[in-house]
């Protein structure tokens, strides 16, 4: 069992430092914008001036988590990102195309995927395990699995999270990325502190997580996952999914119906997060927040079927379960 002792998200919803947000959020509108906090309260001005959106979000969430968990330092920093630091990548590539002679170094340095984990480390002076996972829509699940494996071996209070940022160009290439634009493309970061020790006020437990590529039949995989965790479909109190239809094995809603999960127990979290590759991290925070306010929620399944061939499954349990 892996205990979550802190959760922090910056998204297009009022998620940041807002316990109970799940009760007030509404489906995302086309005109929604990223709800940024005042980053100067979290990041030194000397570092802030260089940071793009994704770095600001990540560092602020990381520091918020550390503060919530009341720890000095996390034992490790593990980050998942589907597309990395797109703003700096775009800026650097534009520089390559338009500037003759020397190129400004900052955008290049900060365009790499591991900049988020690196900047978090620099911001808090952490010298522990520092890892970035980038496996498209399963990046967060892989980061979470890494954290769980690390906790099984040693270490404690692992900072694990995910972030992605939107740029206009993504709308042009959404087909190539296999994004079905049923919702607007958005930006978001969600971070958590994971521990194998039950601290004073844990928020919830991660019972298990799975990242499956080249999936053929979602229903069979979900069934097997639940069985391994000694649960039946009817034991699930809530399912948060990211299906967008047209799945190999049929619409994801059909999968849950076939498993006997009532329609009112399953919700498409993309309605609230918008579209980015690591929205399952948003779903985890959404589930935690719902469990905090609704004690009847004991077993929650996050089913990430955002892209047809990828399946991410995360089973969350209440502390009381």
């Amino acid at each position, binding site marked *: 069992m892996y205990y979550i002792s802190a959760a922090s998200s910056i998204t297009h919803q009022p998620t940041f430092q807002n316990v109970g947000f799940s009760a007030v959020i509404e489906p995302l509108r086309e005109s929604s914008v990223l709800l940024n906090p005042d980053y100067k309260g979290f990041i030194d001005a*000397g570092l802030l*001036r*260089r940071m793009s959106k994704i770095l600001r979000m990540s560092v602020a969430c990381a520091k918020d988590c550390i503060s919530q968990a009341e720890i000095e330092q996390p034992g490790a920093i593990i980050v998942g990102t589907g597309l990395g630091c797109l703003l700096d990548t775009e800026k650097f590539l534009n520089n390559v195309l338009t500037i003759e*002679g*020397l190129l*400004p*170094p*900052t955008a290049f*340095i900060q365009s790499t995927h591991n900049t988020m984990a690196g900047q978090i480390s620099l911001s808090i002076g952490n010298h522990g395990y520092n890892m970035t996972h980038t496996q498209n829509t399963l990046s967060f699940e892989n980061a979470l699995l890494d954290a769980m494996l690390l906790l099984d071996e040693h270490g404690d209070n692992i900072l694990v999270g995910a972030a992605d940022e939107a740029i206009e160009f993504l709308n042009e290439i959404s087909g190539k990325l296999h994004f079905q634009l049923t919702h607007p493309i958005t930006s978001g970061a969600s971070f958590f502190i994971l521990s194998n020790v039950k601290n004073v006020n844990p928020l919830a437990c991660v019972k298990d997580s799975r990242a499956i590529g080249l999936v053929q039949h979602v229903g069979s995989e979900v069934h097997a996952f639940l069985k391994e965790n000694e649960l039946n479909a009817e034991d699930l109190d809530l399912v948060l999914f990211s299906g967008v239809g047209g799945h190999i094995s049929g619409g994801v809603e059909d999968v849950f119906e076939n498993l006997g999960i009532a329609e009112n127990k399953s919700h498409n979290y993309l309605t609230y997060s918008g579209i980015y590759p690591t929205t399952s991290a948003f779903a985890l925070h959404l589930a935690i927040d719902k469990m905090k306010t609704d004690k009847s929620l004991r077993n929650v399944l996050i089913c990430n079927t955002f892209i047809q061939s990828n399946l991410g499954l995360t089973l969350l349990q209440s502390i009381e379960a």
Partner: protein
Amino acid sequence: MDNLKEDLKNQIIEQLNLEDITPADIADDVLLFDDGGLGLDSIDALELIVLLEKYHGIQVINPEEGKVAFKSINTMAEYIRNRKVE
């Protein structure tokens, strides 16, 4: 007013994205890489090298030159003037 020094201050603010700093906040003799001054770092040093080529057509080949030239706005202006005479 020395136009070159004023231009340099504006160029540094833009190139280094120095939020909340105006040219008036940068004294001609303030140490650019000192925490008591602008607190610039090694990445900023690279950006200043790019700045000199971009705005003034000057390439800093010898790193030792940069150490002296980038001390302050005064030394940067002096370095630019000397290089343009060569």
